[in-house]
């Protein structure tokens, strides 16, 4: 590029950069057609329309309580939901909605004992089947796991856990929240529902330079070099910026049970008076970890492989981060086909 070309290119690139950043909220995400099957309080169960159903056992997707489940269906051509539909699965997804202060009384038990069982029930009714595959991601994975440990008779045939925290000791979150000076009760009591932006800020502070600077620098570089894919950047940026509040009671229990007291791995977790026994998890279990996951590090998930009572436990470890593993540009080639293959072997009648 000559000096003159550079001179001309810079203001054009600046304009394009500003346009990409300023219009990211307009990016279409979660566009695969879906129907509302069931609603309760803020929770909604969706069913995706499929014309290519081959496997009878439906797949129920359960996402975390932070961020929105649109990451399963980020954008056309890069949607895990779309991929599963093409593979021939009947796909359902739980959306926890956007809780507010009035939902501050919803604890982990509400999700594990009320909402997940109801979502499973409605999935079975809508699909006409008697078993499902449940795929949980991040906190959604932990909630799904706790549910299976608490209800041995749950009609879940296959349990897929993606970047799921189990043993949190040694993680950065543990370092931040397990200390006595972090008064989680006080935070939950005052906020009612902990603002999503605070949680997003904490997540970003784990890699401050990468999240607050490198992302934008790389976007600028790509635009300047004429190699940018604004739709990819905007879809992900929009999803990252969409942070629903974390219901106060659930937040307090999540931090206390999982970080301050690390109860799940110590077999001390009790929900509604019943102990969660992972030996009762007898589903076919697939555990997926990401090598560069700083939110739910791989070593914090691995104890699960020996804790569950299942005879069929498979572990996939892939390069990538907490979200990039499943939603990154390489996910469609590197991890989705493996998940679909694992599921296909276990989804026949």
């Amino acid at each position, binding site marked *: 590029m000559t000096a003159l070309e550079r001179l001309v290119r810079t203001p054009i690139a600046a304009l394009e950069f500003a346009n990409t950043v300023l219009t990211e909220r307009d990016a279409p995400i979660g566009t695969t057609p879906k129907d509302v099957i069931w609603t309760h309080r803020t929770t909604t169960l969706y069913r995706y329309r499929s014309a290519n159903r081959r496997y009878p056992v439906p797949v129920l997707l359960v996402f975390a309580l932070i961020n929105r489940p649109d990451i399963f269906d980020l954008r056309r051509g890069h949607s895990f939901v779309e991929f599963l539909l093409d593979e021939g699965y009947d796909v359902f997804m739980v959306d926890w909605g956007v809780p507010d202060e009035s939902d501050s009384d919803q604890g982990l038990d509400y999700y594990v004992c009320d909402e997940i069982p109801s979502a499973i029930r409605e999935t079975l009714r809508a699909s006409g089947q008697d078993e499902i595959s449940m795929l949980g991601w991040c906190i959604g994975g932990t909630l799904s796991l706790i549910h299976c440990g608490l209800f041995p008779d749950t009609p879940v045939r296959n349990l897929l856990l993606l970047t799921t925290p189990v043993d949190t000791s040694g993680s950065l979150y543990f370092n*931040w929240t397990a200390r006595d000076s972090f008064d989680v009760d006080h935070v939950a009591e005052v906020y009612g529902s902990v603002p999503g932006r605070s949680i997003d800020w904490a997540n970003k502070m784990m890699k401050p330079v990468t999240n607050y600077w490198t992302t934008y620098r790389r976007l600028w570089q790509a635009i300047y070099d004429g190699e940018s894919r604004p739709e990819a950047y905007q879809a992900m940026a929009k999803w990252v910026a969409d942070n629903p509040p974390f219901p106060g009671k659930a937040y307090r229990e999540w931090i206390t049970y999982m970080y301050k007291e690390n109860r799940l791995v110590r077999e001390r977790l009790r929900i509604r008076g019943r102990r969660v026994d992972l030996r009762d998890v007898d589903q076919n279990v697939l555990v997926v970890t990401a090598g560069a996951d700083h939110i739910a590090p791989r070593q914090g998930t691995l104890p699960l492989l020996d804790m569950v009572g299942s005879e069929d436990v498979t572990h*996939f470890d892939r390069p990538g981060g907490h979200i990039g593993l499943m939603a990154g540009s390489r996910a469609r080639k590197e991890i989705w086909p493996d998940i679909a293959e694992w599921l296909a072997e276990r989804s026949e009648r």
Partner: protein
Amino acid sequence: MADKPNQDGAPAPTPEQEVRRLYEEAETRVARAAERVVSRDSFGELLAMVTENAVALTRIGNEAMDLVLRNLRVASRQDINRLTRQLGRTEDKLEQVLQEVEELRDELGSSSNGTARSRSGGASRSSGASDSRRRNTRRSSGSS
């Protein structure tokens, strides 16, 4: 200048490419240093203190605003939350009733089907939900 090959036979980097490489290297180092900083105990303490202050300020602001609204005889956020919670509890009860009704309807449907089948001499089939689960005795750990 740009095309002059280096020892590997690859074209030598232009000054611009070299500047970019050096910059990216510096940025990576700063990023790693920042990650080390945030993983320190002292940063954790700082974070806890900042959170505590933010929570205290929020509480003061909320209480003051609620007091103003209450004195103006206008419903405050607390009042609206109380009302919404009551609505939530009512919805919970309705959901339970709905599930009970659906289960009863299913039971009624299946029992009337069974009666119809036995009248016509047909044998009823069990769904065998638990029997249909395949148990694989594989415990693998495939990583790439």
